[in-house]
């Protein structure tokens, strides 16, 4: 095994990440504005921006789910406990002593176990919670005549708001994590250039050199 600079984030993944980031920032700012925490936008502007961004994000997610399953990259997000303890220990203690991060990216494992679990939870818990509640919220007037609609709306609003708080907390931790280990720039660049240092087996290296020479430097 040896370290190489390998393209681990394809063009689509980078586009996905950054447009998702932009949309989530718009959604968080307008959403908390709608909730009454600030008045940067008028309610009408905030609703328009929030709804537009949400619909755009849903379209993006549809593409990303299609991408994940057709490219088999969904496997990066399979949860594993292998190596989890080391990562947890590192962030709790090792990092303060200046230890090396215990995890090495592998070609079919570009996230460390903690990352993979966090992103998986985001994908299957928080994001569905917010978009399902959000769509129900948006189309309230289509079901307002059902029994107990008001109580349902109150519950839906609470789920939506709670998920928003959790996503905001995730965003803070996610950005902070970039400052750990290597430099902030070293963490950021792979999501821009696509390339990062990856532990490759000789077979993987040989495969890339022959079939995807542009993906390895």
């Amino acid at each position, binding site marked *: 095994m040896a370290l190489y600079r390998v393209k681990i984030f394809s*063009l*689509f993944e*980078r*586009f996905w990440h*950054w*447009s998702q980031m*932009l*949309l989530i920032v*718009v959604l968080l700012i307008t959403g908390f504005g*709608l*909730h*009454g925490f600030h008045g940067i936008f*008028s*309610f*009408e*502007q905030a*609703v*328009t*921006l929030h*709804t*537009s*961004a949400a*619909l*755009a994000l849903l379209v*993006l997610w549809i593409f990303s789910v299609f991408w994940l399953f057709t490219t088999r990259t969904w496997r990066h997000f399979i949860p594993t406990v292998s190596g989890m303890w080391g990562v947890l220990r590192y962030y709790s203690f090792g*990092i*303060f*002593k*200046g*230890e*090396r991060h215990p995890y090495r990216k592998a070609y079919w494992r570009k996230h460390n176990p903690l990352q993979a679990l966090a992103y998986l939870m985001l994908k299957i818990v928080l994001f569905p919670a917010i978009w399902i509640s959000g769509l129900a*919220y948006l189309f*309230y*007037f289509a079901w*307002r*005549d059902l029994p107990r609609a*008001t109580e349902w*709306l*109150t519950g839906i*609003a*609470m789920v939506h*708001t*709670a998920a*928003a*708080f*959790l996503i*905001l*907390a995730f965003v*803070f*931790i996610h950005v*902070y994590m970039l*400052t*750990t*280990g*290597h430099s902030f720039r070293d963490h950021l660049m792979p999501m821009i250039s696509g390339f990062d240092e990856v532990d490759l087996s000789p077979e993987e290296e040989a495969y890339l050199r022959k079939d995807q020479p542009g993906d390895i430097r």
Partner: protein
Amino acid sequence: MRASIAILISLLALCFAAPVSAARDNWPTPPAAPVSPPQVSGPLQGGTADHAKFEELQGPFASGSEVTEACLGCHTEAGQHFMKNIHWTWSYVHPETGQQLGKRYLINNFCTNSRGNEGMCAQCHAGYGWKDESFDFTDETKIDCIVCHETTGTYYKTPNSEGHEACSVMFAGKPPIDLAAVARSVALPERANCGTCHFKGGGGDNVKHGDLSTALTEPPRTLDVHMGVDGLNFACTACHVTNRHVWAGSRYRIISKDTEGTGLPGQRTDVATCESCHGLSPHPVDSLASFKLNDHVQSIACQTCHIPEFARGGVATVVDWDWRTAGKTRDGEGYHEEGYIQGNGEHRYTYKSIKGNFTYDENVVPDYAWFDGQMIYTTIDTKFDPSAEVIEINGFTGSREDADSRIWPFKRMHTWQPYDKGNGTLVYTHLWGEDDAAYWGNYDMGESIAKGMADFGLDYSGEFGFIETLSWWPITHMVAPKEEALACGDCHAPEGSRLASVEGVYMPGRDHNPWLDIIGTLLVGGTLAGIIIHGLVRFFSPKGEHH
């Protein structure tokens, strides 16, 4: 890469294009017309007869009834049609509650009751000579055609009985009416015709309704976008469409939620709801906001957003009336005081010996509530607990759960008025008359009630007091141009929401769960604190090997 940039840009464009297209243009608000069009009075336009040329209308006429006979000579069925409407009967039995309603019977919290005071109040009866119970409601010649149809503006009515001289002096010295000229001027009713009575309900300009005042006689479109002389110039009957002299739109049976919308030719002409012209999706779907606004039609009456304030245009409305102070005299004479200057510069009475104290308001933000169109009246027959604090003259029902209810704007009228303290009922007061019991002239409330009740065989305990009453007036006129309609944030706001008191619905922006907000804020705050602490510990920790 170029493709992805294009996608990103188009996503961004989607985010920002929508608010731009939501910018308020002038559609469908009619733009200001450079030349005032003639008043639009119902669907029929361009009549084929010039009444000024009719031999029958050349006069002379000795009385209004003679004019009516001339009218009925050609309009043979008009009399029978007319005698069925409430302008004539002043009576309405509600088909659902069975309550006997109508001006003839009801008690309000202005001048309280017309019953027994017809000599004065029936000036606004579309007939001639109703001063007491002997009036013949089957006599077609007693119909007053010209009050609604004349267009000279010189016609007026005076009380049907003399009344006490303290009051009758108000009607002295008016110029004589040229009935022949008035008769030849007849046309479809204009705002001024209806306004003769409807703008002055409750005893003065805009006293009663709040959204019907003389400001609407020649209003700018900014005051009412339909009636504006520089806009559509609608007469009342453009919306209150008439079928056999029966008008669409009723205060006794209100359509709070129209689910039918517009009619094709030949279909519904019997309604005066906003939806009957504007349809059930009134906002053009050119933005996300309009899409949401069209959804709101299910919960919010059009009037709620489109009449941001009533009693606009410089004419104030009375919002509080205190009968307790009535009856004060100076040297044995009644008097009045002016204490309010309204927007158009006119002085208004704030005290009258015959009526008590008034409080005025202008540019009033309405009260808002769920309303199903059903008013439940406290009538002369209603018994209530004599120690009750507030009586609703016309309480109403409605809720979020009710399919017919929407959130409506109301004028709230508060009054202290006399009631029967012994029996727990409202009372008929005998205000107008030539006798010694008439309050207007004699200022003895006890005697006035005793006679007012006895004349109609009603039980009176002999002991009266004053009780607080409320009446609710759904607001539906003075529709502002759309640029001045409420914005989303006027209701969807944590502080100062127009709908702050409206219950039964979760409104984003207005409502939130305080616990969730506290926990969420602690979570995010705690995350940030954790990050800072983690970062600080890292910063001050001994550096190990550098990568």
